């Protein structure tokens, strides 16, 4: 009888333990890439409000980083701030305050870059997201999506966007786009193909009033 009870308890415990393990991480990690080329720096105030919104919505265990897109973005030097928020909500709040201060400082001191290395920034972002090991991975690109790479930099190779949601924010139309809108559409379409062909999800969000949709999964 006792043996039967022992077996039953063991089976129950094993079942319970197997039920507890959750292979998928529920944490969210976000990398926001800020375009600092040319006149786009004037748009950074909008980016600041988005960062503040994200800081308000992210929870303990989530990771958040903000990096610049400049002439050569595949570099740690371009990361303005990055944090994985503490398990305790009170400590996480303190981290968020520090993060906000770092962003404010960057916005005040930012200088325009000559080129726009979006692909380099994307590579940097994927590396960061990979390191966090989060289940939900987002790259937010605050840019006009017009890439201008310095001579000698190689970026024409496929990037692995598997399970990463890339959201292009505030994709402003350039003067040339106004002349020929197909240029704008082609630019967006190229990025979509690049992301989706390697298993990622693509989305464009120009209306910043619908900022709450930023971290929603793509349909």
């Amino acid at each position: 009888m006792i043996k039967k009870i022992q077996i039953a308890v063991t089976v129950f415990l094993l079942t319970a333990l197997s039920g507890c393990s959750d292979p998928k991480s529920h944490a969210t990690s976000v990398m926001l890439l800020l375009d600092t080329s040319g006149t786009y720096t004037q748009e950074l105030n909008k980016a600041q409000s988005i960062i503040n919104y994200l800081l308000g919505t992210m929870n303990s265990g989530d990771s958040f980083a903000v990096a610049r897109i400049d002439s050569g973005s595949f570099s740690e030097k371009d990361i303005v701030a990055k944090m994985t928020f503490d398990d305790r909500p009170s400590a996480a709040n303190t981290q968020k305050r520090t993060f906000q201060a770092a962003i404010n400082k960057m916005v005040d001191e930012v200088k325009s870059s000559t080129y726009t290395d979006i692909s380099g920034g994307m590579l940097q972002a994927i590396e960061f997201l990979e390191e966090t090991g989060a289940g939900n991975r987002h790259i937010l690109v605050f840019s006009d999506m017009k890439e201008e790479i310095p001579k000698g930099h190689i970026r024409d190779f496929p990037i692995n966007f598997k399970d990463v949601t890339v959201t292009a924010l505030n994709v402003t139309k350039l003067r040339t786009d106004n002349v020929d809108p197909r240029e704008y559409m082609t630019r967006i379409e190229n990025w979509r193909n690049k992301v989706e062909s390697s298993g990622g999800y693509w989305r464009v969000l120009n209306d910043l009033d619908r900022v709450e949709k930023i971290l929603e999964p793509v349909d």
Partner: protein
Amino acid sequence: MTFSEIMEIWWPGHAGASAIIWLMIIIITMWLARTPAHRAIKSFSFIIRNAMRMTAHSITSLEKHLEDRNREVLLNNGLEETERYIEREFQRVEDVVTRDLSGYPSLQRELKDQITKIDNDYRESSEVPPMPQNYIEAIDSVSKIKGNGDPMVTRILGEIQTTMKHNSEKEVAEYRRSSKERHSLLKTMMPYWRNLSKTLSSVEKKIVGLEDRSKVIDAQIEKYEQIMAKTNLAERVLSSSAMTQFFTSGLVLLIALLGVYVNFQLIALPMSEMVGGSSRLGPMRASDVAALVLVFFEIVLGLFLMEALQITKLFPVISSLDDKLRKNMMWVAFILLVIFAGIESSLAYMRDLLAADREALTQSLAGVIVEAPEFRWITTVGQMTMGFILPFALMLIAIPLESFVHAMRTVLGMVGVFLLRALAFAIRQLGSLASSIGHIILNVYDLIIFIPLKIESAFKVKNTESALEEKKETIESPAVKSQAVVNQDEQHNPSVSQ
């Protein structure tokens, strides 16, 4: 081979003609196979109907079994409940008797003393003083006697009158004094009367209370007897009572569940400060699980406390414990509950702090500078109080839970009986439907082959007619006629034949 090829097999290129040939073949085949086909259809529908009826019969007997079992459980529960009720009523009567009527001898003594005193006083006051003699008429008569001018007689008469007047006044004074004494004695009896009346009133109240209790006990005994006799009325009353209890306690439990949710919300956020906000157990956050565990643990402690207090009887093991052990258990549960309530109250305070910090951060992120609200302490105190009281409030879940569990057995049994009855009915109907479908198929079969059937019928009629004609001709022939006459005579006169 395609369908159209098969169709045109008899006359290629003429689908219509081929179809007619096919139709004729089918009709003739069906006509030839009519009898075995009819037999097969009838057998098949009969088998289905019988199988369905047997299944329905089995389900009906299962339903009957379940109904009997339900009835048994219901009556047993009713008996137990009534026994408990009667026991409690007797306990109350015993309490009244022990508390109030145990002092009956002293009460009787007191009453006797008071009655004796009243009796003595009454006896003393009953000695009525003699009425004063009627001196007035005598004095009046004396005063009317004339002295005839004799001063001696006049003086004597005057003295007699004075003496009589004096005596009269003396006697009246004595009478008045005596009456006064009597009245004062009667006056002293008043408090005794009042006391007596008061004592008797209290006795009456107690007796009336006992009488009321006895009426309740009578009603319960009657109910008990009806349950023992297993009457339909008792069963109906108990079923109705169980249904009412089920829905009422279900509603209360639903409200209690909302209370659990409120309690959970109160401590979930601060729990993330203790166990971390990012770790998870399955799909749930560890902090949420910890908060739920805390709330459920408080409920369990509350259940144990109610059991130890013998308010509920969900766990027979606890009720059957030694009284001392049970009391110890009660105290342990109560102290733990108080500790948990304290923890919850402090968590509620921490929640308020965290909420304030979060609010400040949100405002800072939004670039708004807002001063802290003046009466924030009210929310803090409210949350802390709620955190302390909710565990004790949730403890009361035990009462509706017990009723729900008890009533659920009856209600589930009734639902089970209803479902089985509905199933048996549906299966029986399916059986009847199968039988009807069999009849319809037979009729449709005959409808398809109605032409050969008509021809067959016409042939049969013709054959019958010719057979009848042949018979008629045979009967009408002379040889047969004479034979018939002989037979007739033999029937009328049997001796001729002998």
